[in-house]
């Protein structure tokens, strides 16, 4: 769906293609950070992720609030997470 999921960058995996690995609740996948390319993101930074793209930089406190709110939403959040992880494999081909 279209929720914003909080995640923490673990690695900038491809500077030129604006790709980064991000950890969401213990699972990592690749996302696109081109929309925030002017923010000099680095590993450890928190972002809001929407349809596979980082759309806003947030701090850790905000990430915790966002996560708590989303978890209360329940099923819609689970569906969003399922979507986020289900296409992990597809996103890998962007690297090549």
């Amino acid at each position: 769906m279209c929720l914003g999921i909080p995640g923490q960058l673990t690695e900038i995996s491809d500077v030129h293609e604006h790709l980064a690995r991000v950890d969401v609740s213990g699972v990592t996948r690749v996302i696109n950070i081109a929309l925030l390319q002017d923010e000099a993101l680095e590993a450890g930074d928190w972002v809001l992720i929407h349809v596979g793209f980082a759309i806003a930089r947030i701090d850790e406190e905000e990430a915790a609030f966002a996560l708590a709110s989303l978890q209360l939403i329940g099923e819609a959040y689970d569906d969003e997470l399922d979507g986020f992880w289900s296409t992990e494999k597809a996103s890998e081909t962007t690297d090549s």
Partner: protein
Amino acid sequence: MESSACQEIDVRFVDEYRDPKAARALVAHITELAGTDDFKFMEVCGGHTHTIYRHGIEHVLPANVELVHGPGCPVCVIPMGRVDDAIAVSKEPGVIFTTFGDMMRVPGSQGNLLQAKAEGADVRFVYSPLDALNIAIDHPDRSVVFLAVGFETTAPSTALTLLAARDKGVSNFSVFSNHVTIVPPLRAILESPDLRLNGFLGPGHVSTVVGQRPYRFVPAEYGLPLVTAGFEPLDILHAIAMLLEQIREGRCEVENQYSRVVHEDGNPRALAILADVFELRPHFEWRGLGFISQSGLKLRPEFSAFDAELRYDIPGVRVADPKACQCGEVLKGVIKPWECKVFGTACTPETPIGTCMVSSEGACAAYYNFGRMHREAAVTLGRRSTIGA
């Protein structure tokens, strides 16, 4: 007896909030500011609708402060004829039709995308437009179409995907754009005679892209305050308090309650990317609101090779909503979900008649899943649906 049972309900909601003490203080402040006048504030963000129902915010507010849900769900505003167009494209030979999950069950006039898939169309769920592009790269013998839906929150992601498609020379990928922008429906609501509003809660994530400036016409031309709000229940309560403070102090402006995430200028990079790839259609049809000028995004001529509307024959037939469907009125905030004649009976999440019930951000789905029990409990306990004094 009744009042302590009532107390239980608000305590249960408020205790779920991150800081119940702060929540109670905000509610007291709101109640004091509202006094004996009636207020109607509209929110235009599917995420806000969800938070409000999920956290019972309407039950925590005083009865004279009412929240109205506007057209904040970009799936919900897609008219049936446009869904028919999407289904027609999905049935074209060689097409792999990709879409976000909640578009799969939106009803067209002859069924939905999921049913088209059952009938043999290759319809696939994707989480991201980049996933659709990767499918195109992996299947050079097929034509991949991506059904693009969403406000300015999502459109930059589609734009980046198109830029990547062009840069990589992908020739079997196209986008069927149903992106819409937030300002025109706000204006349409303000121009509508159906509704008397006292202010708006500005959308959260759309604002990360567009910033705060686009909303200035609301106080400037219509004399109503707008406060952009975050997604926590406390954020929404805080934003409502800020709206009431403005009104009581005789101010009328755009304020940003969600300043920890939303910047005044939004995201200039995202806006530039949008402008590179998309342009405004002269007009676009919205479910329930009719044709609104300059409200829809289409691909710029430089990207016409990726435009599904140019690649395929789109029927483009206008289809009226079913007679029983009152989505239009719900989307404009004229009626509440439970006031729709088919809510919960003929129209449920399992058997949706209209879009407000299909998308999990839609007012009816949100209310059905979260709001009903709270309201029914309140009514059963002998109170109105919101807490009285």
